């Protein structure tokens, strides 16, 4: 490896450390801006409690210490990769997050990949049939899917498929109770996955379809398309090979950004379908002032974003040598 490249990698990796620390500090301070704490909430949920009881809770949570001490304690913990203990749920934060990651990944990955596949195809189709019937249909449907509130769509799907037709479960991730073989369990989860995926996927599909269509239309105005047509290529080949491959870039870029959101899950879809994902974990933690859990999730997701950015930067550096020397 050339010294310039080595220096570049080292510099970028070292830059990550202050960024992560700054994020940790910001998270900590932001969460402390919210009034009230977990001791109050636990006492209130128990129907009220004596001040001694609340004070004891606060002491045991470490919330009675000065803010700077709590902060130093938090940073010291992070240094050893210890995400701490959830005072509300009484479990290690790491376990709580790890419990929810599979459900979130399953839902988001299925939703986004299906959306990406069908959204792109519909976008290409609409662009290739620009200003014809199919284009209008795709455009109107995409607009509708984009504008429909997810929770409403989810409920309507439940009404249709669970109540009226009675063919799909209304919520949850699996049938509770019976022991099943791995294959039966997978099928069972797939059945439960269908409606939430559809709800989530339609929204993203609309985004990708619109984006792909407009990107295609823009590419169509460029000279190399004229050249391709002049060469006598079929319209299908011009569209699918020449235009589509060039128009894919913005869609891929957007999908890349959305991978960063994956970990957050979708609070709305998870709520309507009772899907045990991360989005709801964060939402509940926020309402319950479950500080360590919130800090944990925020920290993990921000580190992930920073690392993805780092990977992309490094990749750029190797792909485009000019960046290394800037």
């Amino acid at each position, binding site marked *: 490896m050339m010294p310039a490249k080595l220096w570049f990698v080292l510099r970028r990796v070292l830059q990550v450390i202050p960024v992560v620390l700054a994020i940790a500090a910001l998270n900590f301070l932001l969460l402390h801006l*919210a*009034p*009230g704490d977990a001791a*109050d*909430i*636990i*006492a*209130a*949920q*128990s*129907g*009220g*409690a*004596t*001040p001694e*009881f*609340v*004070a*004891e*809770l606060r002491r*045991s*949570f470490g919330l009675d210490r000065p803010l700077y001490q709590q902060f130093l304690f938090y940073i010291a913990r992070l240094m050893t990769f210890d995400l701490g*203990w959830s*005072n*509300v*749920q*009484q*479990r290690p934060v790491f376990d*709580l997050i790890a*419990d*929810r990651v599979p*459900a979130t990944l399953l839902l988001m990955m299925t939703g986004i990949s299906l959306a990406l596949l069908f959204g792109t195809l519909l976008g290409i189709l609409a662009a290739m049939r620009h200003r014809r019937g199919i284009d209008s249909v795709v455009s109107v449907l995409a607009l509708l899917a984009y504008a429909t509130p997810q*929770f409403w769509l989810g*409920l309507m799907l*439940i*009404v249709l498929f*669970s*109540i009226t037709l*009675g063919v799909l479960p*209304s*919520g*949850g*991730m*699996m049938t*509770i*109770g019976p022991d099943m073989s791995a294959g039966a369990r997978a099928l069972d989860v797939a059945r439960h996955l269908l409606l939430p995926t559809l709800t989530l996927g339609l929204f993203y599909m609309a985004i990708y379809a619109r984006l792909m269509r407009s990107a295609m239309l823009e590419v169509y105005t460029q000279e190399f398309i004229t050249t391709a047509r002049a060469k006598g290529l079929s319209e299908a080949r011009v569209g699918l090979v020449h235009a589509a491959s060039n128009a894919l870039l913005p869609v891929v870029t957007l999908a890349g950004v959305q991978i960063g959101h994956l970990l957050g899950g979708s609070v709305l879809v*998870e*709520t*309507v*379908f*009772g*899907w*045990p*994902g991360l989005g*709801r*974990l964060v939402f*509940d933690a926020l*309402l*319950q*002032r479950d500080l360590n859990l919130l800090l944990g999730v925020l920290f993990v997701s921000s580190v992930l974003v920073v690392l993805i950015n780092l990977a992309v930067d490094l990749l750029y550096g190797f792909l485009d040598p000019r960046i290394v020397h800037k």
Partner: protein
Amino acid sequence: MIRTAPAGLILAASFALASLSAASAQQCGKTGGTLTYVYHPEPTALSTIATSAVPVAIISTKIYESLLSYEGAALTPKPSLAESWTVSDDKKTYTFNLRRDVKWHDGKPFTAEDVAFSVEKIVRPYSSRGRVYFGDLAALETPDPYTVVFKLKDAVPFFMNVFQPGETPILPKHAFSGIDVGTAAGVRGAEIMQKPIGTGPFRLKEWRRGSHIILEKNSDYWDKGRPCLDQVVLRVLPDGAARAIAVETGEVDLSPMSGLPEAEIQRLSKLPQIVTSREGAEALGPNMWLEVNMREAPLADVKVRQAISMALDRTRIVDVIWYGQGTPGIGPIVSSSPIFFNEALKPYEYSLAKANALLDEAGYKRGANGVRFKMTQNFLPYGENWLRLAEYIRQELGKVGISVETQSLDLGGWLKAVYTDWSFNITSTFSHNYSDPSIGVERTFTSDNIKKGATFTNSMGYKNARVDELFSKVARENDPAVRKKQFDEIQQILHDELPVIFLMEMSYTHVWNKRVHGLITNGISMYSSWAGVWKE
């Protein structure tokens, strides 16, 4: 004579048989099956020691038991872990004889040591109401492994009410070996809070966070032939409409404790397969009111508070905002209280004219813009009904010239504003009467409960020496007739002085599928063991 005797015997014997079969029929109409109920939020622990929030109390009372169980709305004590008991004449010594055939879910025997440990080391220091229940405990003795003697400093009239499975759960002493029970962190963080070991009819089988909890039948349960059900399952569905749909389609059997949006309860109640009931929560007595910060004018003026009370139409609040799920509020003790409600109270009438007159009389004339004075209101952030209530209050008080600005905070922020900072004018909230007003009502109205940072206490800054005196006497009075008189006077004073504006007696509505039987047994039915609940 010779002929009748055997006939009598036969008759007696057949009666005995009949009553026996009636008793067992009552016990389990059918055995086996799974009862699935739906609730949100998910429990954060499986012990009411960690928090006695509703979702925790529902599920952990199937796992843990206390010395007593209860029958009827007024909570008549029945045997549970204690099979019999005696109370001394001065009502200061309670002796409980424990069952000898009880085992913990891990197979170890249950003894008096567990009771003493649970009460002294866990419930009294760490349960949110432990100090109210056992503050007067002078000594707790265990003369033998199956006898527990409670010696009180003063007679406590509600002492037989405190042995509810959610309020005074008995935990296994051996599960705390090696744990520092001197700190809340040690106790709350103990493994048993997440992996319970109880004596109850059901034990934990599986907990998938965010999705469900499965309890399975305790086959070693001391009450032979029970529980009727094989499993109790909690499904966590965060969306209210989705919960209602799950009940409607029969995917779940029960939504307890007003777990559905009121509009959905109203809709479901019309379906043939659904039963809705407001019974079975009489010993909780949720009561909704507006807490009034009385520290400053104009709310320090009783006439102003009375005017506010007369400017609000309780019938509309119940019917329109709460979809009929309640009754108009009258005083601090709910009218459904089987013993303590003062029938002589006259509800404030809804009259804008009288409210206007009272405000004029108090010296708050309308200004040029029609406004007498401005104030802010907060509301309990427990969902959209509370927001709609706030909207209604703003609109209604506007009619009598009180300009109200609504402030929206989430629970953490609201608790701090109302109970720590006292930085509010009025706020909606509710409070439970519990099984005795000395447990549930006193904390809001006595002046020694004006304590910064203690939630659901006297946020109003209300001080009345007579009320203080009465509450202190009634908590030590053992003559029921005298107690009733004392509570009557308390209710009259609070009704007249209005440190809080009484709005609505809320109801906990349970919605279940007709195929489920035996749910409503007492005033804390959802916080009872469900050992006798069965499903067709």
